[in-house]
């Protein structure tokens, strides 16, 4: 057993990827056991997740819809998830735990909505402007957390989670007072010109949505990868994240690196917010913080805080969250089962570092045993 564990998750080569895969596998098994326990077929259920995400064809479709429709809608949900997980990943690289992604998303969504979303600007100007304003709002919130950490040594976990609630209640107040839609009880929808998802496009005898910012999410991941791996700034941020003492010894400005990484993290959270509220949804629900901001923490961990890894882990988590509606309608299981599987994946993902250490410990244990045996033989 020990040998097997070492073989699967030990060693150095692509270890984190293997650990993530193990986390996913275990979670799917746990989910399958639960599904079996309530008398459902896990394979069918998991198949439904893929079908609901537009990755497998469904049995039947409503008029003028097919797999492509579902897939485009899947990408629409995937876009903010990629940004949100990148946001967490960047902060994590600097050794900071950003739980404030939800609040930053709200800040971006709200600011962009009231400045651009409710204006008469033409699409050409409105869409880029919304993106820029969203990024700026998120970056400001991020910079504030970084600055608080640097100036007053306030733990970023505390300040970021508090900022979530502060922002949520402030925006809820404004939405309920000025921008509420009396029918939906949500904020007024943003104008089509400002919206980053083009809805109900009709072409090839099909109806679908186009998430305009999806390419931007992929490009951002690549840019962040470049920033982290090829620039001196990324080198500094990572050094600070790995060992503040060693970074300081090397003459790196620790506070500068921390504020900078939180600003970038905030800007990415802003992009997540803008694509979520002004893209995927088109309006803001008052009184709640988007749970995506919290899920993103585990998604980033599952992606090993690597920008490219984040694309894949976001992809996977979005399959589950997006496909769960279809699964529950088909299997007659509660939506919560999907959430449960997702939560288990996220728990295991969060244990990645533990698994790595555990594998390492077993590895040395086995090695020691071998050495002891060898030395006995010599005697």
């Amino acid at each position, binding site marked *: 057993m020990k040998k097997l564990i070492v073989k699967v998750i030990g060693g150095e080569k692509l270890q984190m990827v293997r650990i993530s895969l193990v986390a996913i596998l275990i979670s799917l098994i746990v989910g399958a056991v639960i599904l079996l326990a309530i008398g459902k077929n896990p394979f069918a259920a998991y198949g439904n997740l893929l079908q609901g995400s537009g990755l497998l064809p469904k049995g039947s479709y409503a008029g003028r819809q097919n797999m492509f429709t579902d897939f485009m809608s899947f990408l629409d949900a995937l876009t903010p998830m990629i940004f949100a997980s990148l946001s967490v990943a960047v902060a994590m690289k600097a050794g900071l735990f950003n739980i404030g992604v939800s609040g930053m998303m709200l800040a971006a969504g709200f600011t962009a909505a009231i400045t651009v979303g409710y204006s008469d600007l033409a699409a050409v100007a409105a869409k880029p402007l919304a993106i820029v304003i969203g990024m700026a709002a998120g970056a400001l919130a991020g910079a504030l957390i970084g600055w608080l950490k640097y100036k007053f040594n306030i733990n970023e976990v505390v300040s970021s989670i508090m900022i979530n609630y502060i922002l949520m209640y402030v925006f809820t107040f404004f939405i309920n007072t000025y921008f509420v839609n009396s029918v939906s009880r949500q904020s007024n929808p943003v104008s089509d010109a400002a919206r980053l998802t083009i809805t109900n496009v009709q072409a090839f005898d099909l109806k679908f949505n186009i998430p305009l910012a999806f390419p931007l999410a992929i490009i951002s991941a690549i840019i962040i990868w470049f920033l982290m791996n090829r620039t001196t700034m990324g080198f500094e941020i990572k050094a600070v994240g*790995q060992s503040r003492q060693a970074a300081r010894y090397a003459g790196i400005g620790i506070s500068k690196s921390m504020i900078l990484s939180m600003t970038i993290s905030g800007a990415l959270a802003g992009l997540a917010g803008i694509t979520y509220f002004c893209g995927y949804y088109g309006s803001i629900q008052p009184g709640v913080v988007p749970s995506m901001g919290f899920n993103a923490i585990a998604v980033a961990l599952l992606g090993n805080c690597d920008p490219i890894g984040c694309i894949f882990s976001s992809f996977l988590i979005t399959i589950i969250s997006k496909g769960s509606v279809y699964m529950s309608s088909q299997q007659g299981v509660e939506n919560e089962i999907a959430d449960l599987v997702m939560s288990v994946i996220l728990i295991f993902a969060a244990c990645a570092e533990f698994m790595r250490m555990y594998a390492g410990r077993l590895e040395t244990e086995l090695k020691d045993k071998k050495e002891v045996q060898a030395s006995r033989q010599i005697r």
Partner: protein
Amino acid sequence: MSNSGYIIEMKHITKRFPGLIANNDVSLGIKKGEIFALLGENGAGKSTLMSVLFGMYEPDEGEIFIRGEKVRITSPRHATQLGIGMVHQHFRLVSDYTVAENIILGSEPKKKLLGLIPMVDIKKANADIAALSEKYGLKVDPTSVISDLNVSTQQRVEILKMLYRDAEILIFDEPTAVLTPQEIEYLLDIIRGLRDGGKTVIIITHKLEEIKSVADRCAILNRGKLIDILDVAGTSTTEMARLMVGHEVSFSSGKAEAVPGETVLKVEGLTVKGEMGNDAVKDVSFEIRSGEIFALAGVSGNGQNELADAIAGLRDCAAGRITLNGTDITNMPIRKRIETGVAYIPEDRHNVGLVLNFSLSDNLALKRYYDATFSKHHIMKREVFNENGNRLIKEYDIRSSKGNATSTRAMSGGNQQKAIIAREIDLRTPLIIFMQPTRGLDIGAISNIHKQIIEERDRGAAVLLISLELDEIMDCADTIGVIFDGRINRIAKASELTVNEVGRFMMGVGDKGESA
């Protein structure tokens, strides 16, 4: 059963660690009701021996008898049951708990609320502890919170912790390292009181004066071996120092005479605060010239770390001035200091010298990644990182499984150290500080590093070598300074000092020589 009047007998204890023998066939007996001192240099094996007795390590060979009975001590808890207590160098106290809570932790007196719900009887604990501290003259208020107490009071809490558990054998690991002279006097009085109360006391120390003043007998260890057990009353401190250093030192490096040039580093009246807010370095002044190795000798914890950190900029100076080639660097930021010409091999290679999870090539570029050679417009030139890595790996024979790409975490200690030294020497700075450069390394690596230190000098660098190893100091130094209690109490040419003299100054005995 073992026949003897000894309360503790350790027979033929051997404890090996990978690459070193910490205790080599050590046998000693300790009598009930005596104060027994263990004396030796850093790494002589004193702490290991006591850790074996306290159940933190199991010996590879040998037997332990407690009160005549053979025992296998498997854990500190087991040792406590046997009546052995230990005050560690770093206290193990919960800082938010009160004195009483800390003392009873793990063996709380219980009472039942309403005859049902078990509760900690803190009132009884407070009373018991007050009585206990009265009995042994240990002034402590059981209700005060640990974080409000100073170091010496915390130490008394540790002592009470042992007494509360009815320990008969009390081990003190370097108990005076953190205390002021007055506090030391007070502690030694307490220790005498404990002995007179029938306890057996073992003190690990390298301060000869204390042994002289308090101990009955003293065992001297050197490189894991027991050298001798002496009656303290009949032995002079000089004799003890000689035995402790142990052997004639060979000048094996065969270096040429120093040809010192201009003054490079000038430290004037430097005072540096330590971790605890005390003055760790007190009004220190010295100079190092180009082409000179200034070796700072001293027992660990006498301000060496703080001094090196202050020169490298990792710690603020409370007072004084540091100049490098005439430039005042006292308050210069770290990076600027590196660029002005300070290279620094720190003591802690894992947390400070390397970013352990970074690759070897990244670590080899840790201080230069941003300069024009390594990056352009903030974009790093990976190929330069690799070339730089390859060159240093070859030049300094840094061995690793995957060359440049190896995570330094996966490398051996010796090779990690080689990497740091390669990077720092390659900065070609006028000043280079070696802090404990050979700690934990094997003989081959050590002589190699010594050669590099001397080559640096011959290149014309001013070298500050700080070491706890007297051999190393004697091997490399052109000038020797001895630091004790934050002050440099002797600076002289290496040729004018003998090992024994240096040893004496290290112990703070100084010119008094015979203080028997």
